[in-house]
Each structure stands twice: as C-alpha cells, then as structure tokens.
C-alpha cells in the first residue's frame, strides 16, 4: 500500500487554504491573520488540487463543527410536528441535513486572501444566492474574525454578514451601526430546508453564548455599548421569536429560555444585576437612561412570550392535532422553572419602571 503524495498548490492557494483552516480552528491566529491583513495578487484561476482541497475542508470542517457543537448529543426536537429523540443523524432525515455550497464561499476566500481586509481595493459581493451551508460558513467566518483588532468594522459593514441570521443570533450588537435604524434580517429562512437541523446542533452553543453575554452585561460600564446591545437584541427577538412561532418550531428558541433560566436562577437577584456597572452619566437624559436600562433586560422581556407559548400548549387537548408537539414546549418550560422565571422577570422589569405605584 502506498501513501498518496501531498497535493501541490501555488503560494496563493497555500495561503487561501491556511485561512480556510484557520476559520475552522485548525490554524493559529499568527499564521492566518497576517495573510488576511496583507494584499497579494490573485491568480486568474485556482488549480484543481486547490479547489478539491477547499471542497474537502469545507464539507469536513462544517460537519465536524456541527457534530462537536451539539449534533452528537442525544436530544429531543420536533420533526414534522412530532418530538423525535436521538442524535442529529437519528432525528433528521438525510434530505434535511445536507450541506450544499454555492460558489460564494470560494470566491469570498479568494477575495479574503488577495485583498487587505481593512482597506480592500474592491468590495466583495455574492455572485449567486446563498445556500443554507453558505450562511453557516459565513457566520463561522464572522465569528472567527470579529475578535481580531480592526476587523470587526469592515466585516459588519458587509451585507453578507449583516443580513446573515446566524450572525444576528450570536452577536446582534455588532450590527447596530445606526441606533435609529436597527433592523434584523428575515428569520423565516432559518426554519426551512437544512437550517432547522443546523439550529438544533447549535442549541448548546447558543445557550452558553447567551448566558455569557448576559453575564458580560453585568460588567458593562459604557452606556453607548449597552444601548447598542439592547437595541440589537430587541431587534433580533422581535423577528426571531415570531418566526419560530409561525414555523411551529418554538423548540428552536429554547436556548433563550434556558439562558434566561440559568441567569435568573443562579445570577440575578434584581434588575440591578444587568445594569449595576454602568458608570454614572449626567449627560444622558433620564428618558434615555431608563430606555437603555430597560433594553438591557431584553432577555427577561421575552419571558412573557415563553409563558404565552406555555399557556397555548396547555390548551391543546390530548386528542387534538399537535398535542405531542405542544407538550415539548410545556416540558421545556417546566424543566426551566418557567413560571418562576416569568414571575421574576416581570418583577425585575417593574423595578425599572420610573414611577412604581
């Protein structure tokens, strides 16, 4: 048996592959970030070897990521209106968990390798409509690069990220460029095709992310940052939760209930938890201060929606259609101590009312 010899690629192609592997967490920052910040001439086309390596990395990288993120866990989600238990490959039929990429990821990688991201000579734009796997890939790109100094601003100004529902689910604050006009993208697409399977895999990651995000709020001192975070989150919830309800997939919003439940049960004893670190600021109007403080509790504000879903699920009779599906949210609500969470959220929100009677 002879080992296959390594494939040969050009210098540019090597750099492109280094960046791609960095995006999947297989390369260190110091190897890839200088390449992203450098400008180099792109070749007229890529070699077959390089394209095959990109395809291989994309499919293996994303599948491995989704599996590690939560796909491996035995869990219970709705599938065609019925709760189904098992790992992702047991629960979801193959047709609904396929990764199909368009040419967008490859053209973006060529652009990312050839242009200096902070000052590109030309902007990148999608050549074809985004597929479900494209959306996930571009979120990974954003998530990986946003923490690098100087990269967040050029990234969030690109519509490929600002219109990506996954980017909003994880970092809504990043897309509040103008507080006067904050609009989250359409989330209906997240409940079609392979997206629900991706969201199922991401639930644990999303829960942990939101718990960490709420805890970071309690350390935030800057009013402007808090304002943007609140506005971004409100914009997200305003579109995501109704979309989940409309699609009959409230189970895919459970990460928010779980995060809220953890925060209220283990961290927050009053509304002060969220706003305690905000620095005294006399230059802001009282109305602005109150609005920022209330928006800081954007997640507790959603408790009413979760409670409403619970009330609705209790009205579905045993012989009614959708009984099994309704029970899934009811069980989730009970296991998260939803009634307690709902009551305490209401109490916290009342604490921020300027004229409590």
């Amino acid at each position, binding site marked *: 048996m002879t080992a296959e010899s390594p494939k040969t690629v050009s210098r540019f192609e090597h750099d492109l592959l280094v960046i791609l592997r960095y995006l999947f967490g297989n390369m260190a920052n110091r190897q890839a970030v200088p390449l992203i910040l450098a400008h180099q001439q792109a070749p007229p086309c890529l070699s077959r070897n390089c394209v095959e390596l990109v395809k291989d990395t994309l499919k293996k990288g994303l599948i491995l990521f989704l599996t590690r993120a939560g796909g491996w866990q035995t869990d219970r989600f709705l599938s065609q209106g019925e709760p189904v238990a098992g790992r992702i490959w047991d629960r979801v039929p193959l047709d609904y968990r396929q990764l199909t990429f368009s040419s967008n990821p490859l053209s973006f990688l060529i652009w990312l390798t050839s242009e200096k991201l902070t000052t590109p000579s030309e902007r990148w734009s999608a050549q074809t409509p985004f597929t479900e796997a494209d959306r996930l890939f571009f979120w990974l790109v954003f998530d990986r690069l946003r923490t690098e100094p100087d990269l967040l601003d050029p990234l969030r100004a690109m519509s490929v990220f600002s219109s990506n529902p996954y980017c909003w689910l994880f970092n809504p604050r990043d897309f509040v460029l103008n507080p006067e006009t904050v609009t989250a993208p359409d989330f209906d697409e997240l409940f079609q095709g392979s997206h629900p399977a991706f969201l199922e895999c991401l639930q644990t990651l999303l829960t942990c992310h939101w718990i960490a995000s709420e805890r970071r709020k309690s350390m935030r001192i800057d009013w402007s940052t808090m304002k943007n975070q609140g506005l971004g989150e409100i914009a997200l919830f305003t579109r995501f939760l109704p979309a989940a309800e409309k699609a009959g997939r409230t189970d895919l919003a459970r990460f928010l209930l779980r995060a809220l439940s953890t925060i209220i049960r283990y961290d927050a004893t009053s509304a002060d938890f969220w706003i305690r670190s905000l620095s005294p600021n006399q230059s802001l*109007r009282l109305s602005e201060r109150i609005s920022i403080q209330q928006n800081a509790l954007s997640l507790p504000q959603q408790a009413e929606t979760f409670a409403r879903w619970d009330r609705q699920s209790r009205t579905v009779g045993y012989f009614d259609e959708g009984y099994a599906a309704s029970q899934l949210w009811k069980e989730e609500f009970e296991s998260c101590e939803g009634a307690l969470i709902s009551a305490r959220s209401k109490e916290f929100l009342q604490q921020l009312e300027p004229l409590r*009677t």
Partner: protein
Amino acid sequence: MSRAYRISVKETVTRKITGSDEISTRLELLEILTPEAMGELLRRELEARGFKDQTDGSMARTDGDARVVVDPCNGQVTVKAEVDREVTEQGTRETAAWDDIGPKRHEVEQRIREQIQKELSQKIDRQQEKLQQKATEKLERELDELQPELSEIVNKVTREALKQKAAQMGTIQEIAEDPQTGSMTIKVEV
C-alpha cells in the same frame, strides 16, 4: 505704499435654547370594576388633586417647569420637564489688515465674523447642554415628589372601587380602614 490698519469686529448671537426630558409609565390599577368605571374614579381623584381636563381626554397639571399628563382611560402617565431660556453671547475680535478699504477689508471682516459666530455658537451649545441637565434634574426631583402622590391616587381609587364592588354584591354593613397599614375590611350582607 501699504499701511497696516486695525479691524475690529463685534458680533452678537441670540438664541432661544430649550432643555427637555420626559418619561412615560402606566399606573397599575387593578381591574376591580369595568375599565370605564375605573377610569371615572381615577378622573375624579385627579380632578380633586388639581388636574385639568384636556381636549384629548387626558388630564394635566403643571408644577413649575414640569407637566404631568395622565390618561384616565388607560392609566398612562407622562411627566415632562422643560426649561427654556433666551441667551445672548457677545464676542469682539481685532486684527490687522494691510488695506482699510475695498474687497480685502470685507474678506477679513467676513472671516473674523464667521470665526466669532462659530465660537459663540459653541458657547451656546455648552449652555444648551447645561440646560438639558437642568431639565433632567428637574424631572428627577419631580418624579421623587410625584411617586408617593401617584401611589396614594392608586390606593384611593382601588379603595373606592372595592367599596363600589362590595355595594354591587350586597348591602355594606361595615367598612373598617386602617390608615397605618392601608388595609380595609368591608362586611357585606349578600
């Protein structure tokens, strides 16, 4: 032969500046009677406390620079503090020019005038910020004073509503109120 001349420009800017701040909230009235009946009780109580009817159905009272508006139909309370002032700022600047007549003098004068206006405008903006802070402080003080009054209004309306409800249920035999604890006992013969 050119000679240096001194050009002096005096500029005055007068502007009306306003600082305002407002908050809105809702009174927590229990639904003891119908919303219309609760609204009527609230209206009567507000009237007794100096609130006047407005054309849009709300009731308002002005306390100095602050205005409190209550909508008895839904319990919406808006408190607004507004402070305005007319400010005048003056500035003078002198400079040297090589001609005291003709277009050059006008250019120099115009440039200096614009500079002074910019400086005066910045001064007024700083005063505007201070006035804004004053309005916010005024609103905060007003809220401190208003809070107990609104609580009292809600308590009184609730007590009155309970009495009416009890009267609807039967004949009231005895009403005992404890002002210390705020508790009220109504004995009704049904």
